[in-house]
């Protein structure tokens, strides 16, 4: 994703899973998905390299829409939209 695309997103909830190791980010996302409404957008922060591949697969399985990744210097921002 580009900076413009990220700025255009209306994020409803940010989940900070930085510092946790696998399967920490996954658990954090699973817990937090209950706190957003259908169609809302969640942002996940992770410092874990594997999360970039894990969260899209998690979305695929759970039928949420994975919107994309944005790399910061020391962590990754991942965006997803809760299934309706």
């Amino acid at each position: 994703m580009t900076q413009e695309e990220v700025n255009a997103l209306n994020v409803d909830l940010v989940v900070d899973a930085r510092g946790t190791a696998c399967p920490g980010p996954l658990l954090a996302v699973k817990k937090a998905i209950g706190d957003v409404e259908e169609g809302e957008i969640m942002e996940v922060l992770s410092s874990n390299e594997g999360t970039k591949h894990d969260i899209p697969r998690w979305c695929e399985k759970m039928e949420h829409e994975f919107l994309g990744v944005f790399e910061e210097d020391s962590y990754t921002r991942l965006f997803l939209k809760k299934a309706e």
Partner: protein
Amino acid sequence: MENEFEKQFLDLQKKVNKIEKGTKDQLTMVVFSGDLDKIIAAMIMSVGAAAMDTQVKLFFTFWATAALRDKKKSAKGKNFMGKMFGMMLPKGTTKLKLSKMHMAGMGSSMIKGIMKKKNVPSLEEMFKTAGELGIQINVCEMSMDLMGLKKEEFIDYPHLKICGVATFLADAEQSKVQLFI
């Protein structure tokens, strides 16, 4: 023509029912090894699967059963062999050995230190999370018998059941994924 369609529809419905009954979104794992590293791997995979809403059934057998012992608990009424085994087998997760580079306990301490530094939850914490996520632990009764282990000396885990091989086989048959560790 309409009859033909109806027949095909019923046939398909039957097949779908069979498939739905056949395999569930479920992971069955045989946890055989009593090695620290292998049990850590088993628990990380289980917790990950549960985070993906997959039902998880773990079948603890042979050496793995000793990992379920609670270091603060003991069981009465053991025979001589049971007592011997009890002394020789590790008493719970904190006493498990690494399958490689154990180096008389140095390796295990090192890996635990590294895990802590890298924010990987400890095995004890993973069991707690597993319990909260509803991961089922089935313990092989025959292994317990062989090693003289009793239910009273196991950890307080919310979904722990003592059972036989048929339970494992029935679970495995209904699972999309089966693993052996």
